[in-house]
């Protein structure tokens, strides 16, 4: 497995009412390039904290320890506009198309508190001078940028989409910002993305506002925006949990197709182990901020080593489950 990202001893602590709560405890996890990895857990397991940590979206008040190293192939995205305020010293070899996967250790999370000016970019640590993954310490630093290199789909598209901006513009501005397109080109890209996510009537959908769309349609728009800049990694955090079963199955099928077509790596965060097993090649089981078990889907489903994983599997109520209802008992 070629790693896309390598997480070492990641500990995330939130401060709440003067107390420190560890949301993640010394997590070690490699995300393989191009794999579909599911993160499974119940509330309080730390699965969403992991997603936010990887995307660099943790709040400034959180304390992050450990390392997160990225092994992104050199970005061929020529002409991209990197906001200078976010990427001060970074000059990755843009425009230089590298056909072979030259892996370079890119960032790390230094064991220190984040500067409050960079609340959403905990990945920008100092150069460590370490040599890893075949790269050298003279590699230009490359910070994966949320929206460009990492696409994020949240549970509630009503909360993640701007309610007073037409959805076409919301998608187009991702392409405009990260791909160096003109606005007309960005809008054309937005329309083709709406077609890719199978939104009916993309022309009028461009001008629609989020409240005019159904929950499933809104999530399709959110996915279109998430993949607009061609990210290497797509993170879906409970992206189908608020949808009904039929729409959920459609969105899962859409994610599966888009990830395959674009060669993206997928991090699928879910409380639903059955849903995750249908989509993911590997499953990581989290509980109380710890990574309990990680393995290929078939192994996790058929031969879990942890009692808790078995509990989750047994708690699934499928269409073939033995009914809880004992009709004789109830009607007696």
């Amino acid at each position, binding site marked *: 497995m070629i790693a896309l990202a390598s997480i070492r001893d990641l500990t995330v602590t939130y401060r709440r009412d003067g107390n420190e709560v560890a949301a993640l405890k010394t997590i070690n996890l490699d995300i393989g390039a191009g794999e579909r990895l599911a993160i499974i857990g119940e509330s309080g397991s730390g699965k969403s904290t992991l997603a936010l940590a990887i995307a660099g979206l943790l709040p400034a008040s959180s304390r992050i320890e450990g390392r997160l190293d990225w092994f992104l192939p050199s970005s061929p995205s020529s002409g991209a506009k990197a906001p200078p305020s976010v990427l001060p010293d970074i000059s990755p070899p843009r425009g230089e198309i590298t056909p072979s996967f030259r892996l370079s250790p890119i960032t790390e999370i230094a064991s220190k508190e984040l500067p409050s000016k960079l609340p959403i970019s905990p990945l920008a640590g100092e150069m460590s001078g370490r040599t890893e993954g075949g790269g050298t310490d003279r590699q230009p630093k490359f910070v994966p940028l949320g929206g460009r290199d990492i696409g994020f789909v949240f549970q509630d598209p009503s909360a993640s989409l701007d309610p007073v901006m037409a959805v076409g513009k919301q998608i187009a501005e991702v392409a405009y910002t990260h791909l160096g397109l003109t606005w007309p080109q960005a809008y054309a890209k937005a329309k083709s993305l709406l077609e890719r996510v199978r939104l009916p009537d993309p022309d009028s959908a461009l001008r629609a506002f989020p409240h005019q769309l159904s929950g499933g349609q809104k999530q399709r728009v959110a996915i279109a925006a998430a993949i607009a800049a061609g990210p290497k990694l797509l993170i879906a955090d409970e992206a189908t949990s608020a949808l009904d079963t039929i*729409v959920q199955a459609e969105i899962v099928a859409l994610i599966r197709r888009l990830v395959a077509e674009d060669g993206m790596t997928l991090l699928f965060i879910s409380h639903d182990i059955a849903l995750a097993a249908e989509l993911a090649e590997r499953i990581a089981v989290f509980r109380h901020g710890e990574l309990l078990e990680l393995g290929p889907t078939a192994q996790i489903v058929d031969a879990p080593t942890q009692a808790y994983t078995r509990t989750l599997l047994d708690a699934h*109520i*499928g269409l073939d*489950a033995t009914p809880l209802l004992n009709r004789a008992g109830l009607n007696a």
Partner: protein
Amino acid sequence: MNLLTVSNLTKRYRRGGKTIAAVDDISFHIEPGETLALAGPSGSGKSTIARLVLRLIEPDAGHIEFEGNDFLALSGAALRQRRARLQMVFQDPLAAFNPRSTVARLLDDPLRIHGIAARAERPRRIAALLERVGLAADLAPRAIHEISGGQRQRVAIARAIATKPSLIVLDEAVSALDVSVRGQILELLLDLQRQERIAYLFISHDLGVVRAIAHRVVLLEAGEIAECGDARTVIDAPQSAIGKALVAAAPRLNRTRP
């Protein structure tokens, strides 16, 4: 005799100049001690039916007979009195209850309002209700926002059973719970049904859960009944297009060694 009989129930909404029937000429009944599930996709009318049955909203047409009375004809004190027999549990108890309220206060309300227990007796009744739903009595002084989601839904059930209802409307009542907690809550509901002969109108989009706990199911699509019958018969071999689509979409865990 039926506990609840719903006949030709219709509710229309106007949206953007168009009139949409959220519930369109729906009829069904529930027997004492029975679980009837309403299942269907978003927008199929499940929750609108729940709100109509609870008289949180009024229908445009149709009849509801509850415990032998014309439920839609009741108003004022008579309606409040009858409502004690028809309780509700929603998906998110934190949204349904005042988050700053204590557990004790939430359980005291129905006992006081419906005149079920005198003030001096209420602490004992509250402790008994907590015990009945599997919670420790020392949870009573805790704020509702301090306790876990599973505990909160148990409190919601305790509050519902405080007035000794014959029917509880459960609108996605286990949908937001962790799976390990969900099974315990379903067991609690079944135990209450066995002991107290409470009927449930169980609203869910999850056919696996419906098949596990309901006697009968009504499958809804766009405000109309697509299919109804014995829960396992319908779900194991759906005849309607929406029934087939719901079954096909349910996540499956293919375990070779369950």
